[in-house]
């Protein structure tokens, strides 16, 4: 248990890294919505063209 507490106490962390990497969150969510948007449009088109 002491080993674990020591390890946690000695753990290095950099809170600023969260802010530094926020752009990945923005870009990632933007790209995923764009790709899904294209898929939705393509699916709607196919549905319209080939619906029974």
């Amino acid at each position, binding site marked *: 248990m002491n080993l674990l507490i020591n390890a946690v106490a000695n753990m290095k962390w950099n809170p600023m*890294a969260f802010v530094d*990497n926020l752009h990945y969150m923005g870009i*990632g969510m933007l790209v*995923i*919505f764009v790709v*899904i948007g294209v898929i939705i449009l393509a699916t709607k088109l196919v*549905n319209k063209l080939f619906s029974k």
Partner: protein
Amino acid sequence: MENFEILYKNLLEFGWGEGIMILIGCMLIYLAIAKQMEPALLLPMGFGAILVNIPLSDALAGPIQTLYNAGIANELFPLLLFIGIGAMIDFGPLLTNPKLMLFGAAAQFGIFFTLCMASMFFPDFRDFFSIAIIGAADGPTSIAVANKLGSQYVGAITVAAYSYMALVPVIQPPVIKLLTTKKERLIRMPYEQKSVSKLTRILFPVIITVVVSAIIPQATALIGFLMFGNLIRECGVLNSLSDTAQNVLANLITIFLGVSVAFNMTADKFLQVDTLLIMGLGLVAFIVDTAGGVLFAKFLNLFSKKKINPMIGAAGISAFPMSGRIVHKMALQEDPQNFLLMHSIGVNVSGQIASVIAGGIILNMAAKLMGG
């Protein structure tokens, strides 16, 4: 006395680390059998963990390493498993209402939030990108991405991904209840039955593959194998192959995958504070995924005339079909006449597609950092 050395010499090689790992292996087996938590994967993983932690074990450097090199180091097993998963998925509910895919996209928020969180503790981008992908709630994607990035935490990431997938019925309901009012949970969404032509069902996997691969080439293998499996299902002329992919292939690969993942579960690699941290970050990823989907649905309700039950947003994670069923069950608990199953399953299958896209985006970002 020297002749009896064989009886105790190996026992002296046991350290406390190996002992703990064997206990962890036993716990995974217990969870698989007694609690039926992802038994197809946790049981082989648990037994594999025991095999690789026996001191001087010939299983680690022998068959398990061979299986690891043959199927995980080159991402073959996760991709083959995707053929089986693709063959199991019916995209019908999604094709009748393609807009549901937006919830699949929103529920990937946990991945990118966890990426930022993990970057505070893990300076190497290969590690924090790989940890983030636990939020895909998709075991094969997590393994494929973490391996491709060469993360040293593949074992912990896999255990976290599959453990939380099994814990979706425990994790999601409190988050959903916390973020929604009773009035919102009572919103009914009538399902309009629309027929989808066979040609549409056949074209869908091809279109998804082309669109996703054209925009994110790093996702081609992941999305391609998933959609190949679905094409086998929908084409109507390969029923026998579809059955094989859904049952024999998926089961066989799951066994190999589970045992060979244990290659990374040796005491020296697994018993670190980092592993506990990864488990914690995995939980954050699942909670934020769920919150992302629910809050996105609430956001859409601000503009939409036809109100959406925000609970369906939570089904946007890839844990299929568990998440969709949980939302349906929660809706029935609030109102026994509120049937959300078709909507929630539609959102759930879109989560499968979106999580693979997110995996590709992570690989794309990492490739840029690696200069590839």
